[in-house]
C-alpha cells in the first residue's frame, strides 16, 4: 500500500567548510515502498542516512520522518526507525545474544517479546551457532546479520539500511531480499543505500541517484527510463546520470 510520505527530505545540505558532502537534496518516500539510494563512493549516501538518524546535524534544510524532525525530535523518530550501519561495531565482551537482548530492552521490549521475535529471524539468517560467541570474534558478514536482527527487533515502520548486503554471502543476501519484500508487503517502508545496481533493480519501487552530494535523478524505474527515453538497464541509466558529474576515462 503506497500511502502518505513517511520520509520527507527537503533541501537537505551538509557542508564541512568548503566541502559539500550533501547539497540540496530533496526526496519523498511514501510508506510501503522499497526505496534505493544509489551512488558511487563518496556521493553522500551515508551522510544522508546519518542525518536521517539524527547522528549528524544538517547544515541547512530539513529531514522529517513521519512528520517529526530527525534531529529535534530524534527520540520519537527512533521509535519508528530501525538502523543498519555500513560497518557495525559491537562491544568487545558481549555475546550476540546479549547484544540482541540489550537492544530489545533499550527499545522497551520485554524478555518474552525479544525471544519471540528473534527466534525465527535468527534461524533464517543462520546465526544460531554464533549467538553465544563474543561479537568481537564475528566475521564481517555475521556482524551485519546481528545488526540486522537488532534493527528489526522492535518492528519499526521504517528500516534504514546502509549498504545492507556488503559482506553477506549469497545465502544471506537472498534471505535479506526476502525479508525486505516481506516488510514492504506488510506495509513497512525500507530505505537502503547501495552501489549494487542489479540488486536495486530487482527490489525497489523507487530509486534516487546521488553523485558528489547532489541528487542526479529520482523516481521509479519507469520514470527514469522515460527520462532517458530508452529501454535501458539501471546500469546504463546510472552511468549516464551519475557519469555526468564524474569525470575520468570510461573503462
Amino acid at each position, binding site marked *: 500500500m503506497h500511502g502518505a510520505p513517511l520520509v520527507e527530505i527537503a533541501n537537505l545540505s551538509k557542508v*564541512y567548510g568548503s*566541502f559539500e558532502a550533501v547539497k540540496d537534496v530533496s526526496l519523498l518516500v511514501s510508506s510501503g515502498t522499497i526505496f534505493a539510494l544509489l551512488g558511487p563512493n563518496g556521493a553522500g549516501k551515508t551522510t544522508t542516512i546519518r542525518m536521517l538518524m539524527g547522528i549528524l546535524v544538517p547544515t541547512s534544510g530539513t529531514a522529517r520522518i513521519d512528520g517529526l524532525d530527525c534531529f529535534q525530535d530524534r*527520540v520519537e523518530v*527512533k521509535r519508528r*526507525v530501525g538502523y543498519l550501519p555500513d560497518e557495525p561495531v559491537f562491544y568487545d565482551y558481549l555475546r550476540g545474544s546479549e547484544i540482541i537482548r540489550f537492544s530489545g530492552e*533499550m*527499545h522497551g521490549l520485554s524478555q518474552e517479546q525479544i525471544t519471540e521475535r528473534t527466534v525465527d529471524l535468527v534461524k533464517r539468517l543462520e546465526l544460531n551457532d554464533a549467538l553465544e560467541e563474543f561479537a568481537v570474534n564475528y566475521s564481517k558478514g555475521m556482524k551485519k546479520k546481528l545488526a540486522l536482527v537488532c534493527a528489526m527487533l522492535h518492528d519499526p515502520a521504517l528500516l534504514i539500511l546502509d549498504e545492507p548486503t556488503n559482506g553477506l554471502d549469497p545465502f544471506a543476501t537472498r534471505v535479506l531480499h526476502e525479508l525486505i519484500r516481506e516488510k514492504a508487503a506488510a506495509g513497512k517502508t525500507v530505505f537502503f543505500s547501495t552501489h549494487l545496481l542489479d540488486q536495486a533493480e530487482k527490489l525497489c519501487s523507487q530509486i534516487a541517484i546521488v553523485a558528489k552530494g547532489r541528487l542526479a535523478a529520482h523516481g521509479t524505474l519507469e520514470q527514469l527510463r522515460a527520462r532517458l527515453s530508452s529501454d535501458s538497464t539501471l546500469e546504463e541509466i546510472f552511468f549516464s546520470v551519475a557519469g555526468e558529474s564524474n569525470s575520468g576515462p570510461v573503462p
Partner: protein
Amino acid sequence: MIDSQPVSFMQALRLMGWLAVRRQINRWQSVQLGRKKSDPTKRTGTASKSTGRGIYSLFLMGILLFNGFNLASQGLGRLAAFANNVHTPANKIAVSSYTHRKLVEAEVSIKQVRQTTDIDERQKYEGLWDRYLDQVFQGEVSRENLSEDEESAKVQRMHEAFNQRGAEAFSVEFGSQLYSGGHTWPRKDGPALTYQNTLGLLVLVFVPMFICLWLGMNNKDLGQVEWSFEWLYGFPISTRALLASRLFVYSLFNPPVWMFIFPFLIMVYFTGGSGLMSIPLGLIATLYLSVLAGSVTMLLEVLLRKFLSLSQLKNLQALFTVLGTIGLLLYLASLFSQPLEAFLVGYAKALPASFAWNPLSFYLLLGSPTGTPVEAMSVYALMVMIAVGTAALALFFAEFLIREGLLKSSGPYQGVRQQPAETSSTGWLRGIAANEMILLRRDRNLLVQVLVSPLIVVAYYFLVNSSMVASATGNFHHAATMAFVIGSYVLMSSAMPVLSRENKTLWQLMTFPREISSILVEKTQVWAVFALFYAGAILLILAYFNHHLHASALLDAFLALYGVGLYAFIAAGIGIMGTNTLETEVRARFRPEMVYLYMILVAMYSVAIYTPSIWSKFAQIVLSTLLAYALWQKVKDISPYLLDPTEKPTRTLSLADGMIAALAFFVLQGLFGFFFSESMSMPLAMQVVLAYVIAGFLVFVLCLSIFTSQKIPHVWQSVGLSRDPDNAMPIGKVIVIGLAYGSAAALGAIIYLHAIDLVPQGHIWKQDAEMSALLRRADNPLWICGLAVIAAPLFEEFIFRGLVFQGLRRSAGPFWAVLTSAALFAMVHPPFAVIPVFGLGIATALSFQRTKFLMAPIIAHATYNACVIFLNH
C-alpha cells in the same frame, strides 16, 4: 620480474623509526583542547592539526617535569640526610615550616600584649591569641595520622611547651625544607657508600616497572585480534629488522616513563656535583635503562603472543599493570615517605660495596663525587656492552621463536571455537545496568582497574605508613576520608571513561529511543552505586575496629558517602567533556589532564571532611553539587552533537559561566590585594576597595567580551543588562520593586541580629567576626561604606544574578535557581552573615525574576547594605 629493491637492515630501521615518530607526532597533534570542533575543511571526523592548543599540553608536561624535579630534590635531600645520620633534636617538637613561622610571629605579638597595662584589654587579647594558637596547633596535628585522643593530648603538650619556652620549643620539621644542592651527595666514605647503595636499591625497580607498564593495559596493541606487528610482518623486510625496530620504538617512544625517571636521574647526578653535566648524564642513564627494558619487552611480546591465547594475554596484561603500578608507587613513595626512606637507608647500610656495581644500578656511579676517571670509563664501557649485549640476545631469541611462524593460531576464533563457560544471566538487572555489569565481569582489564587497583593503593599506604592503621581506626575523620578517596579512585577508572569506553559502539546507543545524555546519566548511576558499596564497606569495616566513635562520625560518614555519589557524576562529567568521540586512536581519545583536574577536586572535597568548621563542610557540599550540575548542563547541551564533526550546540549562558566568573572574581581580588599590600603603601581599606573594584570590573569586561565573541544570542539581555524591547517594564516600577525587596531583606537581617543575641552561640560568632576584623586591622569606615553601597551590589549582582541565576534557570527552573544562587551567594560571605545574606540572595533573585533587569537586584542589594551599615553605627 621483480622491480623493487630489497630493503637493507639499516633502511628498514630508519623507515620504522620514521613511522613511529610520525605516529607519535600525529597523536600529539590530534589531542585537542576542549570540544572545539576541528576546522571543517576535512570531510570526515579526522582531527585536524591543532594550532596553539599544543601549548596547553606542553604546559602540563612542564608541570609534570617540575614536579618530578621537586619530588626528586626533596627525596634525595632526605636520603642524604638519613645517610649522614641527621636527626631532629630530642627536646623540641617538630612542626612544619609554615607553623613555625606563625609561632614566631605569634610569640612577638603576645610579648607586646603582655606589656599592656590595662587588665581587661590584656585578658581579651590573650584569650584571642590563645584561640588562634589553638587553631594553629590543631591544623598541625591533623596533618599527622593520630587518633583523636592522641591529637588532643599533643595539642595540650604544644600549648604547655609554648607557654614555657615560646617558639624556641619548636623546630622546623626534618625534611620539610630540605632541598638538594650540588653537595648533597655525602663526601665521607661511610655515608657516601650508604647513599650510593640506597639509590642503587631504589633504582632496581625501574627496569621491571618499565617492562610491566609497557606490556600492561596501555599496550592496546597486544591483546587485539589484529596485531599491528602482523601487518608489518607482511612486508619484505627481514625479521631481524622488524624486531630491532620494535625494540627501538619501545625504548625511545614512551614519554610517561621519561617524565618520571629522567628528572630523578638528573637530580641524582646533580647532587653529586655534576652541575650541567647532569643532563647528558641523566640522558645516557635513561637511555641505557630504556634499551634494557625495551629489549626484554620486545622479547616478551613475541613470546607471549606466540604461546598464549587472547584471553590469557588479557589476564596477564592486567597482572602486568598491577605490578607496574605497584612499582611506580613504591618509587614515588620512597621519595616522600620517611619511614620507607629510613628502611631503605637501614637496609643499604648492610650491603657491601660491590652491590653498587650491579647492572641495574651501576650507572649511578657516574655521579659519585669520589669516583675516579678509571671508574667512570669502566662504567661507560660496561653500559655500552650490557646494552648492546641485551639487545642482541633479545633479538636472537625473538628470531628463534618466530622461525616457525609468528603465531600459534590465527583468525578471530584463534583456531578453536570456545565453549562458553558461563551462562549470560544478569539476574534482575536490565538494560544499561546489566550491560555495564556484564562488561565489568568480562573485561579483565576494567575489573582490575576498578576493583583491584584501589585496594593496592590502600595496602600500599598501610605498608608504607604503619601508623595509618592506628589513625584510620582511631580517628573517624581519617576513616571517612579514606573511604571517600578510595571510592573516588574506583570512580576514576569506572565513571570517568563512561563515554570514552563507548569507542565505536556509540552508534548503537544513538539508535535507541532515548536521549544520549539520559543513557550516560544511567551509566553513571550504575557506577555511583557500585562505588558507594565499596566506600560503604570500607566505612563499616573501619567503624567496626574503631573504639572511640563520636556522634560526629555519622556526619563524616554522610559526607564521605554523599561525596562518593556526587563525584561519580563529577568524574563522568569531566570525562565526557574531555572525550573526543570522533578520535579513533584510543590513546588520544581521552585527555589525561582531566585526571589531574579530578584528583584536585577530590583533594578539595577531602578537606571538607577534615575541617572542623560545619560551615566549610556545607560550603564544600554546595560547591561540589553545583559543579556537578554545571558539568552535566554542558553534557546535555553537547550530547546530541557527539558524532557530528562540525556542528556544535548554540552557545547559551550556563551555570559553568557563572561559577567561573565567581571564581575569577575572588581569585583576582586576592591577587590584586596581595599585589597592593606588597608593593604600595596605602591604607588597608583603600587596598581592599581598589582590589575589589578592579577585580569586579575586569570580570565584567572579560565575561561580556568572551560571551560576545562566542556569539551568545542576545548577550546583554540574557545577563539582564538590557531589557527585552517588547516586554520592558517601566524603570519606575523596577526601582520600586528593587527597593521593596531590598527592604524586606534588610528587615530579615534586623530580626536575625536581634535573634542571634538570644542564642548562646551567638556571642562567640560575633567575637569571631570581630577577631577576624581585628587581625586584618581594618580602619577608615568611609571607604568601606562606599564599597558596600556602590561597588559590591554592582559586581556581585552581575555575577550571582546575571550569570549564576540565569545559567541555572534554563535547566533547573526558577525555584531551584533562586535557592541555589542564593546559597552560593551566601557562602562567599563570612559565616556570621550567612543567614541574612541568604535571605538577601533570595530577595534579589526574586526581584530579578520579576523585572528581568539587573537594576532591581542592584538597588535591592544597595538598600540592604545601607540599612545594615546604618544599624551597625
